[in-house]
């Protein structure tokens, strides 16, 4: 192999490849870091009751809004309600703000927020979506999972 002055188009190609590799590497690094810090894990009511989720980390949790559990503050937009898997596990959610149009007692809900050491979930965002056929897949899983456990316990 001969070393010496590179031909201009060879030099360009090398430059190109270097830029490419550098660019891709940087993009990959940023991407993985961003991914890593933005994964929101989903937890079911039973897991929250067992204390599985980390305290103070951003997570998602969901189930059915428990019937007759929604309480509104009289002087602010704070609202409290309980989320249940219909099989005996539930947890309390605190939220300040406007609830989505589809939010109802007895319907599926997914909240994003943090859990404190008392087992209270402070939600930053509440998602509700339903019709006769549809419930969020996470919630469907919660209900099904709890029912299976119930059945196998019997």
């Amino acid at each position, binding site marked *: 192999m001969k070393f010496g002055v590179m031909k*201009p*188009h060879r030099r*360009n190609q090398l*430059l*190109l490849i270097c830029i*490419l590799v550098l*660019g*891709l590497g940087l*993009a990959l690094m*940023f*991407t993985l*870091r*961003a*991914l890593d*810090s*933005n*994964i*929101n*894990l*989903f937890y079911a009511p039973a897991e929250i009751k067992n204390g599985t989720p980390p305290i103070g980390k951003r997570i*998602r949790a969901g189930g059915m809004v428990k019937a007759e559990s929604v309480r*509104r503050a*009289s*002087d*602010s*937009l704070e609202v409290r309600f309980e989320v249940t898997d219909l099989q005996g596990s539930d947890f309390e959610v605190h939220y*300040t*703000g*406007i*609830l989505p*149009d*589809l939010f109802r007692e007895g319907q599926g809900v*997914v909240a*994003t927020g943090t859990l404190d050491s008392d087992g209270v979930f402070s939600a930053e965002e509440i998602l509700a*979506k339903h019709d006769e*056929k*549809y419930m*969020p*897949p*996470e919630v469907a*899983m919660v209900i099904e999972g709890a029912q299976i456990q119930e059945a196998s316990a019997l």
Partner: protein
Amino acid sequence: MIVELGHFCLVLACLLSLLMVVLPTLGLSRGQTSLMMTAKTLAAGMFVFTLLSFLALVQAFVVSDFSVGYVARNSNTLLPMQYKVSAVWGAHEGSFLLWTLVMSFWTVMVAGFSRPLSLDMRTRVLIVMAGLSFGFYLFLILTSNPFERTLPFYPSEGADLNPLLQDFGLIVHPPLLYMGYVGLSVPFAFAIASLWGNSLDVSWARWSRPWTNVAWAFLTLGITLGSWWAYYELGWGGWWFWDAVENASFMPWLIATALLHSLAATEKRGVFKSWTVLLAIFGFSFSLLGAFLVRSGVLTSVHAFAVDAERGLAILWFLAIVIGCSLVLYGFRAWNLRSQVTFTATSRENLILGNNLILTISALVVLLGTLYPLGYEAFTGGSKISIGPPYFNAVFVPLMLPLLVLMALSGTSRWWKTDRETLLKGKLLTFGIAVAAAVGLTLMLPSPNLWVIGIASLSIWIVLGLLQALALQVANKRDKMLALLKRPVGFYAMLIGHMGIAVSALGIVAAVTLSEEVDLRMTPGSEARVDVYDVKFFGTTAVQGPNYVADQGRVEIRQENTLITTLFPEKRRYLASNSVMTEAAIEARFLGDLYVALGEPLPGDDAWAVRVHIKPFVRWIWFGGLMIAISGMMSVLDQRYRSRKKRSASVKADTGVLEAAHG
């Protein structure tokens, strides 16, 4: 009866698409021109029968024929007429019928407006499009037939169209978006046809350019409109959520944007040949992936409809076959394709390379974020995660900044070789002016910040760069006006498109960093101060709409005691489905919107939760999108395609014209 005829027409169209694959292919292999020529007629037949089938479904909606299951699920006798018609594409089955209609429309356009192509090439393009159509028809007829009757026991009243979809935005959003999605099948078909015919010369790039531009323009319009619709209709005041389905339309857009730049380089300079082919393949593959994500229900999304694993699997198979076959063909024919052309570091080719690199990586990081939850679930055995908007913002924004810089440099660049001096001439000066202007303008805002200053500087720098490009065109020309008039339309299309990006970028950064968003508990007569505005709530009154009842609030917004506007936001309850919906009231202004939405009634004193948003410059986002779409439509009017028409008209030759320019 008409419904059965519609179903019959659909089956006929499906058979025609199969014939359109078989006959011309036979013609190709036997060299029989007459067989190859059938493609054009078959394309016309396919379009006509799909249109008839579509009209039959429209008719079923118009007369509220609830014996058709799809109509019963998505319409109602109380529904206003325009929504009865748009309800045709309000759910999975009908919207896929629209998809096939659009597909047959593009096919017939290609058949009619591609005379300049050699018969072989044209036939191959049409065969590919017919093959895709056949797949779509099969999927529609076998898994998602909108004409299915629910006899003998059918409901006397329909379940109603989802209230969110009862809106002007939904009448036009899907057709535009599908024109874009499906339109990307044209450059795909061109790429596959030239791989198949082993004719990967520069001409395929030339002929697929106008099609790509138009499809891309429609996609841009569709996305822009969708964003605007989400803003005023969903009642949260957001305009982009990085929702899986939004990403599904954004990824093909990113790839198509890369494609139309790289097509330009391939046509003008013969570079990036095999890369351009790959982009054409991936552009359409991303369209199909989008269809899969929307229609399979694998991802939680605001948009997802048709939660049906069987359909999802069918689309996934189709996707796998299309991508698999394309890549195998690509592997055999294009992967060792070398172009003999060189270019230098400061050439336009290099800038386009940078553009392609950034856009492709952007599409990939969006793809990663969109599919990651699926992969995670599969590998961890069912753990559900979500990837929030912070991920997308964190990776997407740093990628867009260098793209804006490239854009600022692009106007004065030349093919093959730009003197470093010409390229960078005045760039420092214009950058200085841009920063000074940005700082000056931003300081006039109530709460300036570095993001706004930065993006404003870049945007102004881009616009100045475009003006420089304009000046460069007339430098050394005696009659400057004439010189400007003689520039091809494509050049002005480029100016407007890039300016559109600058306008959108400004709108985005201002709307994100300067917005003021508060949720308030308000009783009748109470007042609150938001930003520089005084907001007064006067309580609600009951009003009645055609198919809903509503509580209509009255909100006055004042600035320094002068009334700016009175807004009437509504909380509606739709009678048929008993679903509640927020109708925001928006005072749209050039420099920023005032946005008020009713939350929910609160206990005590007739209080309501009221959402008030101040959104500076938010309209610029969509205005920029409109400019970008216009630029895509414009670039097909380019002289190059028209002068060919004249020439062919005079010599009556079979080659020369690309009437596609008017498509």
